[in-house]
């Protein structure tokens, strides 16, 4: 391992290492962040939820939005998979159905960035465990 030779060195190192710990820092304090849950049961995965999840993780990071993306079990909307639940700080969670990459992009740009509603909202009829 190379030596840390100066305070500037240490700071560079910290910046580089921080991304590896980012997930832990964020989950420590998710209330202030955008929280997205992707339904990843068999039905969801079969219809592409995994790709959508990866897209959401990468794109929110690229676009500088502090987000926690987690997976949940089947939300009970198998007819509309992949489904995702988006929880903006201070707002009620909203569930979107039939989310493909294009839709996910629209949700990031319109709903997450500007709070504009987009098509595909499913009325919420359940409550999750914290």
């Amino acid at each position, binding site marked *: *391992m190379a*030596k*840390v*030779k*100066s*305070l500037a*060195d*240490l*700071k560079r*190192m*910290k910046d580089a*290492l*921080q991304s*590896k*710990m980012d*997930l*832990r820092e*964020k*989950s*420590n304090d*998710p209330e202030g962040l955008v929280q997205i849950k*992707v*339904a*990843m*049961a*068999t039905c969801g995965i079969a219809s592409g939820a995994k790709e959508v*999840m*990866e897209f959401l*993780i990468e794109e929110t990071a690229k676009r500088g939005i502090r987000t*926690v*993306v*987690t*997976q*949940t*079990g089947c939300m009970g909307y198998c007819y509309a998979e992949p489904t995702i639940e988006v929880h903006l700080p201070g707002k009620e969670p909203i569930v979107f159905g039939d989310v493909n990459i294009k839709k996910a992009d629209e949700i990031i740009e319109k709903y997450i960035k500007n709070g504009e509603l987009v098509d595909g909202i499913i009325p919420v009829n359940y409550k999750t*465990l*914290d």
Partner: protein
Amino acid sequence: MEKYKMHILICGGTGCRASASEAIQNNLQEAIKAKGLDDEVQVVMTGCFGFCEKGPIVKILPDNTFYVEVKPEDAEELIEEHIVKGRKVMRLLYVDPENKEVISDSKHMGFYKKQIRIALRNCGFINPENLDEYIARDGYAALGKCLAEMTPQTVIDEIKESGLRGRGGGGFPTGLKWEFAAKNIADQKYVVCNADEGDPGAFMDRSILEGDPHSVLEAMAICAYTMGADKGLIYIRAEYPLAITRLKVAIKQAREYGLLGNDILGSGFNFDVEMRYGAGAFVCGEETALIHSMEGLRGEPTVKPPFPAESGYNGKPTNVNNVETFANIPVIINKGASWFNKIGSEKSKGTKVFALAGKINNVGLIEVPMGTTLREVIYEIGGGIKDGKKFKAVQTGGPSGGCLTEKHLDTPIDFDNLLAVGSMMGSGGMIVMDEDDCMVSMAKFYLEFTVEESCGKCTPCRVGNKRLHEILDKITLGNGTKEDLDLLRNLSNVIKDTSLCGLGQTSPNPVLSTLDNFYDEYLAHIVDHRCPAGQCKALMQYVIDPELCVGCTLCARNCPVDCISGERKEAHLIDTSKCIKCGACMEKCKFNAISIQ
């Protein structure tokens, strides 16, 4: 390249390791491999989460799910259900004992709600054997800041302003201590970390060293910079193998990165750390004894002055601080004294780590702001008394402290308040007692410890504590007199006034505080020959209830000393003067006719 979407944190503290957290880690890793998820899920072994009662703990991120009492054979299900299918494994979640609610995020648990983690900030969060994770959380940034941007005096001023007081028991202002050590000019000076932790039931320092060893190394380097020392020594008891291993790994990594050694961060400042091992004598935690023990001499205290700051290790100026004191330092430098001194009470700033033990639901390690009340600690964080029993007392300060009772429950805990009510902060042990605990026996237990641990240098401590113990023993055997109570008090005061070191000066505290708070209980032993808690065996009596006894003779046939008499089909009687209290009769009686009174 790995792109971890989930992190699984497993507690690698001593408590959870004892219950197989290593096997859990292996099984989790295997299950992850089997699913081909190696690149997506990171498994990390951390330090203690504090909730040792419910260990082993496994926490899954980013959804912050806190699994308790996990067994190695649960690993596959956790991966299959939680990681692959995204469903929480309900049976491994924590259930609130009060309202039976299932809680999956630790932040919502009563145990964690009131806690603020400063000294324990990285415990249960980072892998203590990975310096990168420490650096990612601002590790060594405080040292860097001191070396590059602050003079030794401004660092000292910052610590003084923070109001930090020593966590080793005495509560001496840390900044002031550093200033003394800085002012003494010498060719060689030393920084010593006191990791002796001899209090029965205490494991605060051990957990910090196991969970975040670099925070202590970094703080020692900062201290060394302020006083002009280039050598640090960590005095740790040999019974802490895991803490020793983690420290050794940390020292090695810090040297490899150049964060220990010569010319640290290009500043020209040199500092390195060595370990010294203690044999586990309580008195060796006292700073002068500790220094003598490191010098290869007998671990006996000597008179102060000279203080270590003038003449310590090898006669050179030495600064001794406790592990937890050190662990606070980097945060104070990074966040500023004015951030730190807003937490806590008026004269005790910041937080304190306590080891909760005894008859309490949530045994474990907690960190709360100074000024938190005992009630909050015992009932909200600690979850109340085990088995719905009644709270009786809590012993703080270990063998040097005293017991606090019902009437002290709303006292804000800090250095001065605890002293004012006849106890002390000590290093942070907190042992909770319920209605079944006998306070005379409790005092006797601590005196037994002190008698064992006294170094024997001064007579009042060596002989006096032994006498105290004998009198207490006599009382628990039912042979005490009222005069004994006066004797206990007088002798206690003499020992306190005439002992050389803190051990003798505080050892009678458990006696005095139980006399103050539970005088009636002493009287019950002496006058009524009765132990209200039913704990003193000598005062128990086995009696047969003539109403319930059917005269089956079974008890009489099983009594080893033949002290039960009675005719067939008639009520039996125990001759209590001969009974040796073996309990055999009670065990045999099928009619519940025999009880202890």
